[in-house]
């Protein structure tokens, strides 16, 4: 009984201490935090029928005992501003006929097969079911392409790979060589660097957790064509979302747009 009471007190004290520290952090950021969300406005041409739409994958989250970890990332991070702001750039910089609004797809129905390019954010928090793994495998082998982004460090990588290994138990995730067409289809991107998320503001540090080095990996099909482009230890979504913010460095935004455009055009030509 005494033991139980001591544990309760310790838990309360710990919770109090964490709350105080967390509140202080938010307060500190709130003082000079330049990245404010604005209300979404539906573009006038949002229903236009186009060749391409920015498809975003809705997936189930990783379930762990650590509730904070479980709640931290999800499929909808940066949604929809990143999507819409990015496609504005795609429209301006390429000849691709793009819809101004995004398309959310999942692995429950067959709708994903109508969208051969899909963006997956925070896959370090996904947890696909066996049926979803099977469908994603079929989607990729038929000719679909997924671009993953905004997951950092070894732990998120491992969680990402837990599902990917069930999608492709027989294929390796490998580093994409610089000479691969995906880095040259429009822009020559031999000199890439880590693109930080806004959590790194003021960007004196560009990595999160132990994800110090940006990695560009992928899974190839039997004909040497990329099916999965895994952008690890970077946050291209934030770069798209906050490209219009003076506080977000232009060089990161520019690279993020070029990466995104190259990945789309690659998937539409290979």
């Amino acid at each position: 009984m005494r033991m139980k009471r001591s544990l309760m007190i310790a838990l309360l004290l710990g919770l109090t201490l964490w709350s105080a520290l967390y509140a202080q952090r938010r307060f500190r950021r709130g003082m000079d935090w330049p990245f404010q969300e604005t209300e979404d406005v539906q573009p006038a041409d949002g229903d236009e029928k186009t060749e391409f739409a920015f498809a975003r994958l809705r997936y189930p989250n990783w379930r762990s005992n650590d509730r904070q970890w479980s709640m931290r990332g999800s499929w909808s991070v940066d949604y929809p501003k990143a999507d819409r702001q990015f496609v504005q750039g795609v429209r301006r910089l390429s000849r691709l006929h793009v819809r101004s609004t995004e398309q959310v797809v999942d692995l429950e129905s067959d709708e994903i097969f109508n969208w051969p390019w899909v963006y997956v954010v925070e896959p370090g928090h996904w947890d696909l079911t066996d049926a979803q793994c099977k469908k994603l495998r079929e989607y990729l082998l038929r000719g679909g392409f997924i671009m993953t982004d905004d997951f950092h460090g070894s732990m998120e990588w491992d969680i990402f790979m837990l599902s990917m290994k069930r999608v492709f138990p027989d294929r390796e995730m490998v580093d994409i060589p610089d000479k691969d067409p995906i880095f040259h289809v429009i822009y020559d991107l031999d000199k890439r660097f880590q693109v930080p998320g806004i959590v790194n503001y003021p960007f004196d540090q560009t990595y999160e957790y132990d994800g110090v080095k940006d990695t560009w990996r992928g899974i190839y099909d039997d004909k040497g064509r990329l099916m999965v482009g895994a952008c690890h230890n970077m946050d291209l979504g934030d770069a798209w979302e906050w490209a219009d913010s003076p506080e977000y460095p232009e060089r990161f935004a520019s690279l993020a747009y070029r990466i995104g455009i190259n990945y789309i055009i690659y998937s539409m030509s290979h």
Partner: protein
Amino acid sequence: MFEFLFKYPLTVYQKGSVVLQSGWSVWWWALASVVAAGIVGWLLLTKWNNGKRAKALVLWGLQSTMIALVLLLLWQPGISIATLKPQQNIVAVLLDDSKSMGLAEDGTTRRDEMKKTLEAGLADGLGKKFQVRYYKMGTRLERTGDWKGLTGEAPVSRLSEGLAQIAAESGSLPIGALVVMTDGGDTAGGIDRQTLATLRSRRFPVHTVGFGKEKAEKDVALIDVQTPTRALADSRLGVTVSFKQQGYAGQRAKIVVSEEGKTLTAKEVTLAADGTPQTENLLFNAGNAGAKTVQVSIQTLGGETNPGNNALTRLVQVESRKPRILYLEGEPRWEFKFIRRALEEDRSINLVTLLRTTQNKIYRQGISTPNELEGGFPSTLDELFGFEGVIIGNVEAGYFTPTQVELLQQFVDRRGGGLLFLGGRTTLAEGGYGASPLVELMPVNPGERRTTFVRDRATVALTAAGLDSIYARLEEDPAKNVERWKKMPYLADYQNPGTLKAGAVVLAEAVTSKGRLPLWVIQNYGRGRTSVMATSGTWRWQMSQPLEDKSHEVFWQQVSRWLVGATPGRVVAALPRTVFSDEQRIPLRAEVRNRQFLPSTDGTVEARISGPGGVAATVSLQPDPVTPGVYVGEWGAEKPGSYLVEMYATRAGEEVGRDTVSFRREDGVTEAFHTQQDRETLERLSTQTGGKYWTPQNVSKLPEEITYSEAGITTREVKDLWNIPIVFLLLALLRGGEWMLRRKWGAV
């Protein structure tokens, strides 16, 4: 009966001419007859003027006719006819010594029946009147002592050549007639006009004696097999098989297409009514490059009298070339990616693509050198003519310079290339093609509407032409193909291509919510071909169907084969056919074009031939005086087997190009076909040369018939007609008739 009444055979009357031996004019006879008739009439009328004039008139007719007939006899009528002088003329008897004469019918072979006919009196009959020479007729004509040495081993009966040889050899011989004893016509191509004209000019009557049944009792026979003579590797090839049957109506039989015993495809068919020709189409994969010997056979059914006509062989040259297709796409599209993927799996197609990714950048894929197409779409003839096919995606007409437009026209018209326009939001009508010179090339007129492209679902339905086309086949079986198309996922978009031009053929239609529209339209243009595929949404066929389903890949591979399969190179070798049955002369032909694909007349062309048993030869081809750029020659292939011919053209010591064709020589196969007696041909031959068709039953009269030939050494004789029985019979009838009437009328 005829000879009993008229004393002489019918031929005498047919060939002879009537003469009056008295030397008096026929007009005197006519006058005397009229005077006699007048006197008789006057006597009768004066005697019978009591109301019996009708009866008197009948009697007058009978008496006048009789008097005229008697008077005619006084004028001594005769028939003048040329007859062969006994034993001074030669009758050539041509005996068919081919294998088909060994066929047994009712327990006797045709050869035995022929021998029996000769021994039963024909040989003696001929021998008594003429000098008889016997010839064996097979691969070549050979003189033989008699009919006993016939072996029946000749693989073919060259009737036409045999007759021509006789006509040539008998320039100074008194040939009275030719007698052909055979079971049919020429199995090596028919009787040519020149031979027929020679026989007629020499006035050689050809008498034919037909053996064998004119209609088989129980037989299934191939009539013809048609296959393409050349194809790209892995192409789908169509075989058209024509056949007929006798005695098996309603039964099932299997058609098998095989190569070296390995079945390529097969189909079971129900046999139609007796004698009715049937046609079936089968498909098979061409496979690897090389000469492919394809055997097409129809199942031999129980009790067939002639199983030798159930199989035919054809040769297909599967080419090792890998045609290049240039695909220009105006903007990134899923269709571009998935067409690329489909054609990447095709080892016979080399796809080069230009993709306008941004306003200022063109992404090149599949190029052979780093500099190739650096400036974008070709603007020189050399660059464009290096391709066999061109696909134009979502590209507005104004993108092409006037030079490029002209090049595209020459590419199709002169180069013989294939050009395919895809649908899209800035092409066809939306792309301004209706007002562009490029509209001349298109199988449709897109018009100038700007709302023809719709991003809405549409399914695909094949037209009647599409159902027949091998290029629209996703399944080899036609019925399964129809079902397969019905199950295809919908297209992502469609476009109204405009109005069809004359000569355009619609293979498939888009079934939209607003009705049907032409989807896949093709046409021939000049030496090449053009097409419109009014959609950019076939990619859904790949993404919406299981990975194992290959219909999207197959469809685009078929389209690409339509596009470039018939695009010629600078040297095109040609033979009149791929199988030469019992025929050793092989005509060789090469069409040579220069770099601009204009006829090349100053080249040197050789045919290098290799064949069975190490046969090797080089034949120099000479320019055809009639057609510029065409070189012709001939070579004799003696040994049966498969031959390869490489035609090689050079100009000023430099190679212009080369092309390979193959052919097969076979002996004795044709003889197994057309085994029924070809009476029609034999009758025609006889009639046109002044002879007659005979059967073994009536041929005993042939020697007498030949006597009245005008060929050879003849003498003209006049045969009396006054003493022929029919005259006396007529006189008796006239007199008897009058007597009977007088008794009846009581006027005797």
